[in-house]
């Protein structure tokens, strides 16, 4: 038996279909590593590391040097061991990061929405 609230949260057919499409998209995320690697393209514009900026303009701007290390993300750049540059390693961790990130995002957004929305309609 579902409580009234759970019944209200139950997904309809379209929602289930979309969830499956999202799962498939998650499994395809390694494309985001493989395609740029195949075409040998660089970083996104304006998202270079301090080292790369030095190579581009000849110096590291002082403020950039100061702020660029302000936050150490647990899984920086969707990877855990940046020394391993093999494409299998990178796309594998990209996939795992995608699944973790999408799941956390989904759950947090659900939680926030439930807290905000009390409109029963």
């Amino acid at each position: 038996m579902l409580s009234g609230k759970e019944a209200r949260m139950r997904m309809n057919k379209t929602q289930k279909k979309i969830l499956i499409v999202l799962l498939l998209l998650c499994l395809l995320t390694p494309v985001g590593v493989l395609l740029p690697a195949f075409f040998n393209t660089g970083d996104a514009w304006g998202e270079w590391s301090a080292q790369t900026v030095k190579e581009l303009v000849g110096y590291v701007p002082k403020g950039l040097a100061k702020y660029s290390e302000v936050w150490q993300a647990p899984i920086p750049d969707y990877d855990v061991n940046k020394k391993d540059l093999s494409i299998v390693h990178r796309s594998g961790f990209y996939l795992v990061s995608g699944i973790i990130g999408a799941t956390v995002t989904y759950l947090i957004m659900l939680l926030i929405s439930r807290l905000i929305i009390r409109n029963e309609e």
Partner: protein
Amino acid sequence: MHIPDGYLSPQTYIPLYGVFAAAVTVAVKKVKKEVSARNIPYLGMAAAFSFIIMMFNLPIPGGTTGHAVGSAVIAILFGPWAAIVAVSVALIIQALIFGDGGITALGANCFNMAIFMPFTAYYLFSFFSFNPARKRLVYFGAFISGYLSLVMAAILTGIEFGIQPLIASSSDGKALYCPYDLKIAVPAMAIEHMLLFGIVEGLITAIIVRYFLRNEPGLIYAFRKGGKNENE
């Protein structure tokens, strides 16, 4: 389009944090009023979709990489206010867990991709696609809305990058933050998004709007509210 830490001066990122905080405050009130509890699962999926679609880095051969954002379609389907909340959640997770986009730049990144972009997309769509019965115009409007809103958000990001040398340089003339000025940053951001990433944003917007128009036409926010066909 995720500005990292160190590229924006405090004179830029602090005001944008303020705008972000104000927009979220209003968005929470609006979502509470406008969005039905039945659509809560959709909002979770919208945020996850935005997160995932931003992971699809696409290359411009010989150049850089970039990606779509998903803000346009979320704004059309669930409203620009819900899009603010959903895309901000995705951007915050990307910054905190994956270091994609800076912590100091979080307000700026949310302003560009989660506030400016969904509102631009929503109004563009409402302008072209005011009548759900004219399906081709709806799909065209959805494409244009995705394409232009991403390109305009990219230009806005380019402006934020490009004003840094004007705001903050050391006495020897070297930049303190982003070293490229408007003449370089704005065209760089605009052109790559016009050539490829905007087209992808436009296509996914049109495809998803088409799917909802066929399967859940009553759900589409842009046709329920604020659209020109509204008779209330």
